[in-house]
Each structure stands twice: as C-alpha cells, then as structure tokens.
C-alpha cells in the first residue's frame, strides 16, 4: 500500500459509512413529512399559525444542520471550513431576521389580505 493510498483510506474511515448516510436520508425524509404535517395541522386549525411556523422552522433547521454536518462533512473536516461557512450563513440569517422584524413587526406591514 502506498502512502497516498493509506492517506485516502484514513480519510474514508473518518467519514460516516454508507449505512449512516442512508440512515440520515431516512431521518431527513421523516423530518420533511413532519414539516408537511405541521402545514396540514395549521390548515385544519389544530395548530395556530405561529405555532405551525415555529415547528416547521425548527424541523427545517434540524434538516439544515444534518446535511451540513454529515453530507457536507463539516463535523469531520477542519474547523476552518466551518468558520468560512458559518460566518456568512449567520450574516445572511441575521439580515433576513432583521428585515423581517423591520417590515412585519416594527413596520406593521403585515398581510394586505386575510388568510383562510
């Protein structure tokens, strides 16, 4: 075995196995079904609109974290990559949150129509 092959195999062992990847795929599918369930429960009046939005947002964040950590290997790779990704991602999230609060909470823009 050459030293290069050894290095590649070492890297493979650091990453999750195919079984883990498939398991995460199943978890992502379940989380998506729960998100859709949140939407349906809001439609039939079981969930209040705010509650449904919160539940769906949390499930979406969990899916985001799973993909980034395991499929994009941030959990196993150098922290430098995590920093390079998280800083702009956090900045984008902050911009979205700030504008949403500015227009929909402080600005009282709200919906121009009534949802049914």
């Amino acid at each position: 075995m050459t030293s290069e092959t050894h290095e590649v195999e070492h890297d493979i062992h650091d990453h999750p196995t195919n079984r883990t990847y498939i398991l995460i795929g199943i978890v992502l599918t379940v989380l998506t079904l729960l998100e859709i369930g949140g939407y349906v429960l809001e439609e039939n009046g079981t969930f209040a609109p705010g509650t449904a939005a919160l539940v769906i947002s949390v499930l979406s964040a969990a899916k985001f974290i799973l993909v980034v950590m395991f499929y994009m290997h941030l959990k196993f790779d150098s922290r430098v990559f995590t920093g390079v990704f998280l800083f702009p991602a956090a900045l984008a999230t902050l911009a979205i949150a700030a504008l949403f609060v500015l227009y929909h909470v402080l600005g009282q823009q709200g919906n121009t129509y009534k949802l049914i």
Partner: protein
Amino acid sequence: MDHAAAATLPDAHPDHLDTSTGVDSRKLAFWTFIGSECLLFGTLIATYMVYKGASRVPPYPHDTVVNGQAYEGILDIPLTSLSTFILLMSSVAMVLALSAVQRGDRAWGRNWLIITAALGATFLGFQVYEFNHFYHAGLKLSTNLFGATFFTLTGFHGAHVTAGVIYLLTLALLVHRGRIGPEKSITVEIAGLYWHFVDVIWIVIFPLVYLIR
C-alpha cells in the same frame, strides 16, 4: 507521508497539508464560494420575506379572502413536497457516489453520479411544470410582489440545480473514462459540496415559501 511530500502531490487528500492554512486550498476556495452563495440567497430570501403577504392583486400563494372575496392559493403543496423528497434523495445518491469513488468502485461511482443528476433533472422538471402552471394561471414576474419575489428566488435556485446537473454529468463521464479515481476523489467531494449546498438552500426555501403561511 511527511508534509512536504503531501504538498508536492496535487491530488493527494491527507488530513493536513503543508499550506498556510493547513487545509486543502481547493476545498477552502470552494467553501469560500459557498459562503458567498449564502449571502446571495440570503438577500433573495430576505426580499421574499419582506414582501410576503404584500401582494395587492391575485393570484395569491395560499387560500385567502380579500374584501370578502375568497381566492384559492396557487401553490401546489403535494407536488412540491414530492419534488423536495426527490432533491433530498439526490443528496443521498451524491454521498454514495463520493463513497464509491473513494473506495475505487468506478462503476458505482459513475452510476450514483448519473442517478444524482437524474434526480436533479427530475426536480427541475417539476419546477418547469410549476412555472408553466403558474404562468397559465396568470402569475408572471410582473403580476404582483409574490410573482416577482417567487420567480426570482426559485428561479435562481433552479439555475443552480441546472448548473449542478451539468457538473455531475461531466464528472460521471470522467469517472467512466477512469480519469477520476480514489486519488482524485476530492474533485467529486467538491462537486458534492456544491450539490448539498443546493439541497440545503431548498431546505430553507421550501418551508419559508410553501409551508409557512
């Protein structure tokens, strides 16, 4: 392998390289690109959120009542849920493609890359159908604020998926010809980063646009 030797092998994939950052410069460059893409999609999503619910003329995204008149929502949640599932499954196929290439399984490396691209193309087919349906239902880019922000946001995402499908098919051809093996698996890993990023963006877009009213 010592660090100096690692640095002289451009396609080696060790844990620590003799670069100024100690990490592979190609991956660092690609993560930086992904960071810039976060800001691009951040602005598009922010714009959508700012104008969410601000349209004054139909069609509206969800079932609504305006001045006592009921309007049926234009979004097709079951259809988009299916296309979301397909894009998620393409991410699973992508990690399996990388795994196959890393262990030197050329046939399955190629096959999983083709499957990933096919699932991506299917997602695009759903998007083309959706855009076509919306157009015929009277929703255009200039119809209202929902149309303008929706087509811009999902259109940019669709353009990224299209680029990804072409990227993956090119890689599948290179793997098929034996030009990419375990020693060059970082090429597939970087393509995987792009593809998973496209998936991650949809993970954000799907609830914000379709599920949260």
